[in-house]
């Protein structure tokens, strides 16, 4: 287990380092970041001033190492627009996005796991087919359009839920559904496949032969084993959601990291953009690492590979 963990940790650190390099170079894609900040038609003198002010005149590797060194010390630079340390703003907004992500993944799991179990208990039944059809339909709906449609029906026509803001728990219902529904088909399919495999195994037959109650066999014996890959999938999807929440947060005006990202992209706030991409990537690396560890802990066969 230790050797496996160390190997995984090494890869995770290397990935994080590579991500930091890519994130850093992002602002050089257009060539000259000073020119990008100054905007078109800026005077040569102004561009030069900006270049010196933000340190773009130094050799590029010095800039990267300086940036990386500061980042490792929790200093991600100062926002061009908010005139505040980027790290402060990000960690102020991060809990909101985490909360939204947690609500969304909970919604997805609560919906998908029972559906997946039911589909596996009665494969190829009407129920199985209907849930499969719904999954295909769900995956074709653009999330922003689905969110707007939810707002229209639940917020405007039926007046059941608040449309924007984050004052109460009710505000998180629609955003969580809009963010989480996209994950449901994948979780459902994986639960179904896992359950089908487990249900045909010998120990389930034994449990049934002993005369255990069907529900007990299904949930205590079968689901426990079938759920292992679902845990890893849910963790990875949670990581994707944090990045994908930008669309949902802008629509519902939830003041999280996604909304912050959208604002800073609109205003070309380069340090903020870099930092958000970096933070979200690192969180993803961390989550997948923990998911790997959890999987290896639950399923000893993985550790050997």
């Amino acid at each position, binding site marked *: 287990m230790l050797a496996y963990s160390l190997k995984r940790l090494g*890869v995770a650190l*290397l*990935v*994080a380092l*590579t*991500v930091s390099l*890519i*994130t850093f170079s*992002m*602002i050089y*894609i*257009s060539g000259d970041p000073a020119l*990008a900040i100054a905007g078109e038609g800026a005077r040569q003198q102004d561009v030069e001033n900006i270049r010196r002010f933000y340190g773009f005149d130094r050799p590029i590797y010095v800039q990267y190492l300086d940036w990386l060194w500061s980042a490792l010390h929790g200093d991600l630079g100062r926002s061009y627009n908010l005139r505040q340390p980027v790290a402060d703003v990000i960690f102020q907004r991060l809990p909101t996005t985490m909360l939204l992500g947690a609500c969304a993944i909970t919604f997805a799991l609560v919906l998908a796991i029972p559906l997946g179990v039911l589909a596996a208990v009665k494969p190829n039944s009407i129920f199985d087919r209907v849930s499969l059809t719904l999954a*295909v*339909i769900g*995956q*074709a*709906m*653009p*999330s*922003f*359009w689905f969110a*707007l*449609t939810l*707002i*229209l029906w639940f917020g*405007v026509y039926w007046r059941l839920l608040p449309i924007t803001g984050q004052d109460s728990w009710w505000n998180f219902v629609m955003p969580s559904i809009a963010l989480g529904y996209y994950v449901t088909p994948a979780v459902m399919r994986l639960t179904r496949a896992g359950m089908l495999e487990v249900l045909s195994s010998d120990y389930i037959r034994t449990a049934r032969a002993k005369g255990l109650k069907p529900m007990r066999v299904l949930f205590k014996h079968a689901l426990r084993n079938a759920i292992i890959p679902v845990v890893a999938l849910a963790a990875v999807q949670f*990581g*994707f959601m*944090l*990045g*994908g929440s*930008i*669309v949902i947060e*802008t629509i519902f005006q939830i003041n999280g990291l996604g909304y912050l*990202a*959208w604002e800073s*992209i*609109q205003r*070309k706030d*380069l340090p903020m*953009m870099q930092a*958000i*991409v970096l933070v*979200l*990537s690192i969180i*993803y*690396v961390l989550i*997948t690492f923990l998911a790997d560890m959890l999987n290896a802990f639950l399923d000893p066969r993985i550790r050997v590979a």
Partner: protein
Amino acid sequence: MAETGVVRAGMMTAEEILAPSPGARLRKRIFGHFGLMLGGGVLLLIILMALLAGVLSPHDPYDQQLARKLIPPFWHTSPKVTWDHVLGTDHLGRDYLSRLLHGAQVSLIIGFAAMVISGVIGTVIGVLAGYFGGRVDMAVNFIITTRLSMPVVLVALAVVSIVGSSLTVVIWVLGLLIWDRFAVVMRSATQQVRSLEFVTAAEAVGCSPARILLTEIAPNVMNHLIVVATLEMAHAILLEAALSFLGLGVQPPTPSWGLMISEAKGLMYFDPWLISIPGVALFLLVLSINLVGDGLRDVSAPENRS
């Protein structure tokens, strides 16, 4: 050739002769698949509409006439409804049907081009990793992990905002970002095929790796490639719509379905059809492509071949 055919037929049993040919069986599987037929039909219709947008459009999609703005579509009972604008007009008085038809072009072009770019990248590195294994595989795995850890929408938005938006930029940004599924699937497909006997045989007779990759591996991973290609095209179309919706994809006045929804966002409480029409169009396009992909997977799955 005819002679060998006769000789072979002579050696076959009656059942084998009467059984449908492999081609006929494939055709039967394809035409008997409901999802594939439905998806293929809708997709073909949308492609035709996009190709003929110039001819079919009743108006110029860019022509603004503020005097005729916000005419509802034909199913509404408002007195403003006119058959001249079947799907109504938007907030600038542009014909919605014409914009919808031209928007189909944008979605299909971006989806297809981004899919081709990501397909080339993902297939090359995936096949190399699967065939050579060892260090190449480790390196490719590392590249895939790194790519997956970066949030697609965010990186795409950031890059587009720095470089400046245009159709070409959106295509390249998406193409360079979404090759991960190609790489993952092609890697495992190649690994599977590589362990089969005919590859070992080809190696034994001294074929070069390039020849083995092109003539032995490539034809046998093609079905996986086609399935992923359809799914990734749908993915690219959804991403373009999301970028355009956030104002950093296709720029106005170009008609894009995502942009149409974005422009109508503020008016949706009064004129909800402004978002439902492009939304349904987007949904149908993505659904039909996904159905074709799922159908092709079913049809080409080896267990269905016997």
